[in-house]
């Protein structure tokens, strides 16, 4: 069966719809004994209803911290040092813990990497679903149970009546991740933060989960922030992508454009470093070195020590996101040259 072509997200000009997530100039800091480390440095992004934004980057790029900051789950001493986060038009970064607890789950759901640690091993899957549903809705026990059944069916778990009574250890990895997705959907939130949802799964199961996420996103008009290191998953799942490097968004654009016409030297290198399935090359393009640690981040553009085209200006000033071909990139190549 062929599915409908992907619905393109409405451009901000034509649709007055409030974005499900709007992050503007977010800065996250971790004060330590050796000084304050800036994990996220002036990051902005927005997600429209029914849109999947892929946030991709290598470990330490700050992609998970961005997700956690939106959820209000930053662990101390991490703190939001600047910027604003709006979920469905409501500012959430200033809410108290109590208010935040109400928003979390009802307006934003979360899916984490390891479904085994996200579920309580001591309670049946049904009990956990019913608890979550009743916490966020007015449903009574019977209705909540019916909704739990409906959710399990929706995420494609066979024989949901029997599965409700079972415990997490009786589920396989892929089925467990489906349960976690059902939990995230329990209160029909407008925004789901999915942090490496398929990383712990095998490829054939991974494809099932990404297809499921895409279907749910399009059917419920849920906005999804898909945080992953796997460009393949982004290519298959996301509508738009934000490439992060060392706490900054270095390139953003529609997924096809970023993959086929990357504009930032880092994105270009990243794309060329992925071995192709179609033809075999003698040596892969490699980006020498590795991402700087937070305490040794160079001045100017954080990528300049590894960049093949860096000039003196890259070591001096910090580039901002500007229009670059079909995308937006934070690179002086597109903003007046590197000299």
């Amino acid at each position, binding site marked *: *069966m*062929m*599915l*409908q*072509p*992907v619905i393109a997200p409405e451009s901000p000009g034509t649709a007055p719809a409030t974005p499900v997530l709007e992050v503007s100039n977010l800065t996250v800091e971790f004060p330590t004994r050796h000084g304050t480390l800036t994990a996220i440095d002036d990051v902005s992004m927005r997600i429209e209803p029914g849109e999947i934004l892929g946030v991709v980057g*290598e*470990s330490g790029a700050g992609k998970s911290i961005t997700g956690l900051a939106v959820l209000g789950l930053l662990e101390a001493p991490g703190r939001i040092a600047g910027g604003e986060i709006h979920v469905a038009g409501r500012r959430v970064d200033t809410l108290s813990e109590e208010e935040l607890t109400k928003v979390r789950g009802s307006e934003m759901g979360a899916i984490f990497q390891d479904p085994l640690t996200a579920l309580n091993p001591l309670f049946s899957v049904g009990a956990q679903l019913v608890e979550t549903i009743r916490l966020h809705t007015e449903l009574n026990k019977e209705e909540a149970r019916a909704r739990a059944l409906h959710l399990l069916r929706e995420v*494609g778990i066979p024989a949901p009546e029997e599965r409700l009574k079972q415990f997490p250890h009786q589920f*396989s990895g*892929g*089925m467990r991740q489906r349960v976690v997705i059902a939990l995230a959907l329990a209160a029909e939130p407008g925004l789901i933060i999915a942090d490496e949802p398929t990383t712990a799964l*095998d*490829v*054939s*199961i*991974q*494809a*099932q989960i*990404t*297809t*499921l996420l*895409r279907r749910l996103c399009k059917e419920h008009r849920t906005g999804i922030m898909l945080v992953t*290191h*796997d*460009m*393949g*998953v*982004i*290519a*298959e*799942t996301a509508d738009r992508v934000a490439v992060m490097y060392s706490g900054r968004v270095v390139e953003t654009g529609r*997924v096809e454009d970023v*993959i086929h016409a990357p504009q930032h030297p880092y994105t270009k*290198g*990243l*794309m060329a*470093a*992925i*071995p*192709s*399935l*179609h033809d*075999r*090359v*003698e*040596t*892969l*393009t*490699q*980006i*020498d070195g*590795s*991402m700087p640690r937070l305490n040794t981040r160079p001045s100017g553009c954080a990528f300049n020590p590894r960049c093949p085209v860096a000039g003196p200006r890259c070591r001096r000033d910090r580039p901002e996101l500007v229009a670059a071909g079909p995308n937006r990139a934070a690179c002086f190549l597109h903003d007046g040259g590197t000299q």
Partner: protein
Amino acid sequence: MTAPDAILSVDHVSKEFDVSAPWLNRVIERKPRLFVKAVNDVSFSIPRGSCFSIVGESGCGKSTVARLVTGLYSTSGGEIRFGPGTAGRPVRVQMIFQDPQSSLNPRWRAGDIIAEPIREMKLRKTEDETRDRVEDLLRIVGLAADDSAKFPHEFSGGQRQRISIARALASEPELLVCDEPTSALDVSVQAQILNLMRRLQKELGLTYLFISHDLSVVRHMSDTIAVMYLGRIVEMAPAEDLFTAPQHPYSQLLLGTIPDIHAPNRDRDLQAGEPPSPLNPPPGCTFHPRCPLADTRCSREAPALREHGRATVSCHAVEEGRTAAPERSHA
């Protein structure tokens, strides 16, 4: 199926693990003994100087094969034979593990980690010669000679994997068993390590047994690929053939589901099903519950590996020419 210049031949090797309940539980609760056949009748041989890869999903037995070859596990049946080594000595085998964080001793300096096999096997006479050799090895893998005084935590993930490779090379091996060597690394660093491994293979004439779940990495590295499913090899073919014309339905499923950044297949049909538990594998062909081509014969009779062109496939459907059966989505 042993090639004359094979550096390693694995012949009908099986490995069973005893996963029975403790003795007292078996006596009181009358629980039966339970065995998992992690590797079941696996045969292959690796020609000198080539790269042989095993792919499959978690639990298919690929890492067990690596551990059998290196002698970390003993076989339950079958035979593993090494070809003659160079200079009349036996073939030396070394292993590179997935996670350099846990495979390097955090209390040892990089130099000592690399020197250990040299000292242990008495490959150099004096401490000075050993130090020179360690510095050479560090340079070969792209690190600096003065890195030998640093501790593993002072290196990045990619550099740590370079130390693992240097240590593996220290004993001058001819066969390197690499168990997911780049799975713990980021893409840009993964490319560095893969390029390094290709260069070393050429310069030192190494033979690789490469274990990975990442098909694009395997495609980049291998000459021959074996696809494993539930402890058995279901298809073995030259890398080109496997990627252009996979024959076994499981190989087709695997290749169909991997995300391809250059040609994203975003609105595909769901490939249903998951690998069954190896504790209780289905009868007949173990893949038949998920197979779009399965018929009654597949559920009764286990297929044998047979040659089809340059590939070896274990599938009744391929053997009978039932490959043109309707696809699952239309069935």
